[in-house]
């Protein structure tokens, strides 16, 4: 049993509207923007066959968004499953109308079997005859049974288009029956498409409420549109078009994209339009396309309720978005009914609701697709094609292109003598003049709404969206302020290179605006180009030396460049102009502190904290400065203030507690120091210094085991830190655990062999070890090996060797390998012998 196939046609069929009868390979190529969805649907279908699951999927997209295309591709991709009858497919064609109830739906499935499975057609025909003769009350049951018998134990996959219309036709009762059947049968899946989300799926009291997983088809992006048109040209092998699309054509594709709102099918229609891109042909092709599209759009409107038709008509002719109250008034629709109709039109994707910037409680409504508006207008035009064509040209061409064309026709007009031709040329000039006027108006409207949108996005902190809005600004409206706004947004976004470029453009258009130059300085500063930043600030200061902020910015740039002397002067200027400039005091404090001028740093930080009591960093640095000046109580006070200005979970709290511990340590208050370090550890258990300092404190208090435990925690955090090995050595040495102490000192010395204190302590501990008389040969040999060749420890190394030989090998004469003074020391201090 091989399913029948009717897919033999090529690209020309595709271009003439629709995917129904096109070769699968071409359909696959044209899957721009839909490939991922097609792959997902195929995956679902294969799961049905291979994994014994069901998949209930509802694909939603407006007319012409590629739904038929997707289902066709899916069907072709699963031909193997269909042929092997691993899945029985009932594929409802788009144009199959006439479902008036549940029985019709079931018959549609049987018809689909007959259509796609030739071999079974006669048997199915016979059974349909029986069904026809069955009493009405039993027909649904018999039809269900007929399908179940045909399908057997195989899964049934229903592929359906316009499923929202089918659900509507089934009504609540029919839907209930269908759902019950799906549950009774157990192995039926539905993958269906619809133009809009059906109200039958979204209401709690409807049978299919929440039943399907929805996939919404997105509109094509501009890039997708360009790719689709390029793919069409490639498939046609149209080299001229490919070249056009790689260059000048891109602008036109953008215009088409805007016009068709990313709609697959309309985009394909306009492909022909691109081919006819000559000035002379344009108006003719335009009208032809519009007339071709008119019936297509009429189907949008024909089946709508009368009130919705009136609203669409009104909005189309109004051209600009309208308020709900105006729509109600002009269409004579009561408010209660209007709300419902507007929301239904939105659901059908025929109108858009836009925010009303003049009144946030209101919304404005506009026709979703420009072409729909134009199609409605065609029927209403009294002025022939002029107004429509003007509308179109305003969308199609840029400002400059229109100007150039107008000039071109004007030059022809001047030399033309034939009256009829002259009249024709006058018409061309007039049309472009009007288009320019309209474009100026459209752009001005759109510029103001774009600016509002940018500000709105900036207010909400969505900088990326603000930039996207800005990109929509018509080129002719991109003035200095626009570029500055873009640059400023980039600054906020942290994209500093882009901000420099944008602000330079603004300055190019308006070189006198000091605000631009000031921000250019900020942008330069952010990218680390301090020379240019300084130059920009100085330029601003020259024009207006009284702005403390510019002096402050200049100071930051100078300081960042390493010029702390000039930076100090600049901060002082800023502070002279604005004595309560807390940030400037703070930064000045930092400069003083970096130069170890703690007295002046303390003054600056105190000014900063007085002006801004919540300035945590200033309190913190004040604490550091006081400590450096040995003004410990001032330091404790400042650190405590720093701790009180942030939340309990503030990131730097552990650092402040640690510093506080150090200050208490300096004051000799080991208990408070210990408590402070413990607090630091509570704030951040990974604070190496807090663990280390707590260890030192405990060591000082004679709590050796605690100290060792603290150091070991610190050691885990930084295994290669010399100091921590050293401190562990200290703790063990204090406990007279010489073996451990030597091991830790050795490690410390290995990490940093130049640390004199470590080396001295290691030597002293080894001597103590030898003196302790608790060594053994093995340990001594280990030590000998470790110390061998280390020049710092050459004497010690000899001592160990001599010690082992004298004590363990009883080789007294080894003592004579030492010079006399060393031998006396060795015998007296290490061997503890009485020697003169």
């Amino acid at each position, binding site marked *: 049993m091989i399913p029948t196939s009717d897919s033999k046609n090529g690209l020309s069929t595709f271009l003439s509207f629709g995917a129904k009868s096109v070769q699968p390979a071409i359909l696959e190529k044209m899957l721009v923007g839909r490939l991922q969805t097609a792959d997902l649907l195929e995956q*679902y279908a294969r799961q049905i066959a291979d994994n014994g699951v069901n998949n209930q999927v509802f694909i939603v997209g407006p007319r012409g968004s590629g739904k038929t295309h997707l289902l066709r591709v899916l069907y072709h991709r699963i031909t193997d499953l269909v042929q092997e009858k691993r899945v029985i497919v009932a594929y409802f064609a788009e144009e199959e109308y006439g479902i008036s109830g549940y029985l019709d739906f079931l018959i549609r499935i049987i018809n689909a079997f007959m259509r796609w499975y030739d071999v079974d057609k006669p048997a199915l025909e016979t059974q349909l005859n029986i069904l026809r003769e069955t009493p009405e009350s039993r027909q649904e049951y018999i039809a269900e049974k007929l399908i179940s018998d045909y399908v057997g134990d195989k899964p049934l996959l229903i592929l359906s288009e316009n499923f929202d219309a089918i659900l509507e036709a089934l009504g609540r009762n029919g839907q209930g029956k269908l759902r019950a059947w799906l549950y009774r049968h157990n192995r039926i899946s539905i993958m269906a498409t619809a133009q809009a989300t059906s109200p039958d799926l979204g*209401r709690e009291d409807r049978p299919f409420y929440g*039943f399907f997983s929805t996939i919404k088809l997105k509109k094509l992006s501009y890039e997708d549109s360009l790719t689709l048109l390029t793919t069409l040209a490639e498939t046609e092998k149209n080299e001229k078009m490919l070249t056009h699309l790689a260059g000048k054509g891109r602008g036109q594709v953008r215009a088409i994209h805007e016009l068709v709102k990313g709609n697959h099918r309309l985009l394909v229609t306009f492909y022909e339009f691109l081919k006819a891109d000559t000035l002379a042909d344009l108006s003719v092709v335009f009208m032809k396309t519009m007339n071709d599209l008119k019936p297509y759009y009429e189907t949008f409107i024909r089946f709508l309720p009368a009130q919705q038709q009136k609203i669409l008509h009104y909005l189309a002719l109004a051209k600009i978005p309208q308020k709900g109250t105006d729509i109600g008034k002009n269409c004579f629709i009561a408010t209660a009914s209007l709300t419902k109709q507007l929301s239904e039109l939105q659901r059908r994707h025929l109108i858009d609701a836009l925010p009303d910037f003049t009144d946030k409680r209101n919304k404005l409504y506009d026709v979703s697709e420009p072409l729909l508006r134009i199609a409605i207008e065609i029927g209403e035009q009294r002025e022939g094609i002029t107004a429509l064509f003007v509308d179109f040209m305003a969308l199609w061409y840029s400002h400059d292109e229109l100007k150039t064309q107008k000039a071109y026709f004007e030059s022809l007009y001047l030399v033309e003598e034939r009256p009829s031709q002259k009249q024709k040329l006058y018409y061309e000039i007039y049309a472009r003049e009007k288009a320019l006027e309209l474009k100026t108006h459209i752009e001005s409207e759109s510029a103001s709404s774009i600016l509002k949108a940018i500000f709105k996005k900036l207010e909400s902190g969505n900088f990326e969206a603000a930039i996207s809005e800005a990109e929509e600004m018509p080129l002719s409206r991109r003035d200095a302020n626009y570029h500055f706004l873009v640059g400023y947004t980039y600054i906020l976004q942290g994209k500093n290179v882009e901000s420099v470029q944008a602000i330079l453009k603004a300055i190019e258009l308006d070189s006198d605006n000091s605000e631009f130059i000031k921000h250019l300085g900020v942008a330069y500063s952010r990218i680390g180009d301090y020379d240019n930043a300084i130059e920009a600030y100085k330029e601003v200061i020259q024009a207006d030396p009284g702005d403390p902020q510019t002096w402050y910015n200049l100071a930051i740039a100078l300081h960042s460049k390493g010029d702390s002397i000039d930076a100090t002067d600049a901060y002082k200027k800023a502070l002279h102009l604005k004595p309560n400039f807390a940030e400037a005091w703070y930064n000045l404090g930092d400069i003083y502190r970096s130069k170890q001028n703690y007295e002046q740093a303390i003054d600056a930080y105190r000014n900063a904290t007085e002006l801004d009591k919540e300035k945590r960093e200033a309190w913190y640095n004040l604490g550091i400065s006081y400590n450096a000046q040995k003004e410990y109580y001032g330091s404790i006070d400042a650190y405590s203030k720093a701790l009180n200005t942030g939340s309990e979970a503030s990131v730097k709290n552990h650092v402040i507690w640690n510093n506080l511990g150090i200050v208490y340590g300096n004051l000799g208050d080991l208990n408070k120091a210990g408590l402070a370090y413990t607090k630091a550890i509570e704030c951040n258990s990974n604070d190496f210094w807090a663990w280390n300092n707590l260890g030192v404190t405990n060591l000082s208090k004679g709590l050796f085991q605690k100290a060792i435990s603290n150091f070991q925690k610190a050691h885990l955090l930084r295994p290669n830190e010399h100091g921590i090995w050293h401190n562990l050595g200290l703790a063990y040495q204090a406990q007279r655990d010489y073996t451990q102490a030597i091991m830790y000192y050795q490690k410390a010395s290995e990490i940093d062999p130049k640390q004199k204190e470590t080396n001295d302590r290691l030597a002293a501990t080894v001597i103590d070890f030898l003196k302790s008389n608790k060594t053994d040969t093995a340990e001594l040999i280990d030590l000998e090996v470790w110390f061998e060749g280390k020049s710092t420890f050459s004497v010690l190394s000899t001592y160990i060797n001599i010690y082992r030989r004298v004590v363990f090998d009883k080789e007294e004469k080894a003592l004579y390998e030492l010079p006399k003074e060393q031998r006396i020391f060795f015998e007296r201090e290490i061997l503890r012998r009485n020697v003169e």
Partner: protein
Amino acid sequence: MKPYLISTTTGSIPDDKIVGRDREIELLKDLLESQSVVIDEIRRMGKTLLLKKFAYLSVENDEPNKALYFIFQGTDSINSLTDVILNELRQKEKYGWLKVQMHRCSELYHKIRGDKASVKYQDIEFSFALPDFKIEWKKAFRACIEDLADHQLAKGERLTLIFDELPIMLWEWIRTGRAADAMAFLDLLRDLHFSVKNSDRIRFIFCGSIGMQVVLDKLKQEHQYTGEPFNHMQKFQLPPMGEADALFLCECLYLAHFQCDQIASKSAYFEDIIERCNRLPYFIHSVFHNLKHNAQGILSNPTINEAFETLLKEKSAASDVFEQLHQRLLIYYPQNSAKLMRSCLNLLSKASAPMSEQDIKTALSFDEDDVQTALNLLWRDDFLHRTFDEQENRAYAFRYSLIKRWWKLNKA
């Protein structure tokens, strides 16, 4: 059990692929030992799948006490209801495990109709959807059930009849002017309960999303119905999935071509998903669907967060499922009650902990008795969870945190 692939889409799931719920099935069996059961639960909580699995396993495992699943959605009249039941019984009889003699039904049928229907299709030979039958349907229905009871008695086994979507069927009958039929059918069910009680061989499970109480309230208020047909039945509340079931569900869904950004994080991601979905299987499916559709099936912290954002903020099938809570108020309750109930939910969606009844009354400018009634209805209709504080005052909170968050974001 080894995980097996299941699809991320929602809708119907084949009986043998329904994940988990073994604990709930055992609980159900325990309850059925002594009495029949009513299950009221809002839509998409997994009632139907639980019952279908229960019925499927009883046959698959050849248990002595089997269950039969009927779905009454779309059953628009008494006649078609009888048809649905008899057709299903005949189907099951063909499979061999259900021995229905149906002699009482046949006798009755011949008495009413005289002759058999003239048209045959394979082995199906009779229909009760005939004019004369209209007045005799109660007898036929009773005869059929009693026949089943007798047969089960002879075998020493018990049969459970599951009537899924019973309340919505009755609601539709009321809505389309057939409240009298609804009341007659409810009375018949009650009578049947007593007539088969002695044999103790038939149990019923009545299941639906709108709540039998809502149907009864409507009949009481508008049609002076006084019956209490479910007094003798035990209410069963379907809980969210157990942790192990929910994690297993994730494992099964994951097999449908998903990947983790870091495989070591898989368990943590699953735990995060089930926790945030309150272990409600429908939403777990929906999150995986969003991940599949919007993130190419990659699980990572950002994609999971985004999937939840989509779930809670965007218009989709899943958001419609949240929306049901709002719609239920409007569809099944009078306007004033609905408004007050909505105010209660708005308030509770913003509360960080359960709110005492008194605090709710104080916060809302409505009559206190009305607030109490509204809270009680919301609790009864499974919107809210009720607890008692230390002073034994009633306190209320959303039953599911996921739904609370949705309400706060979209309705409050």
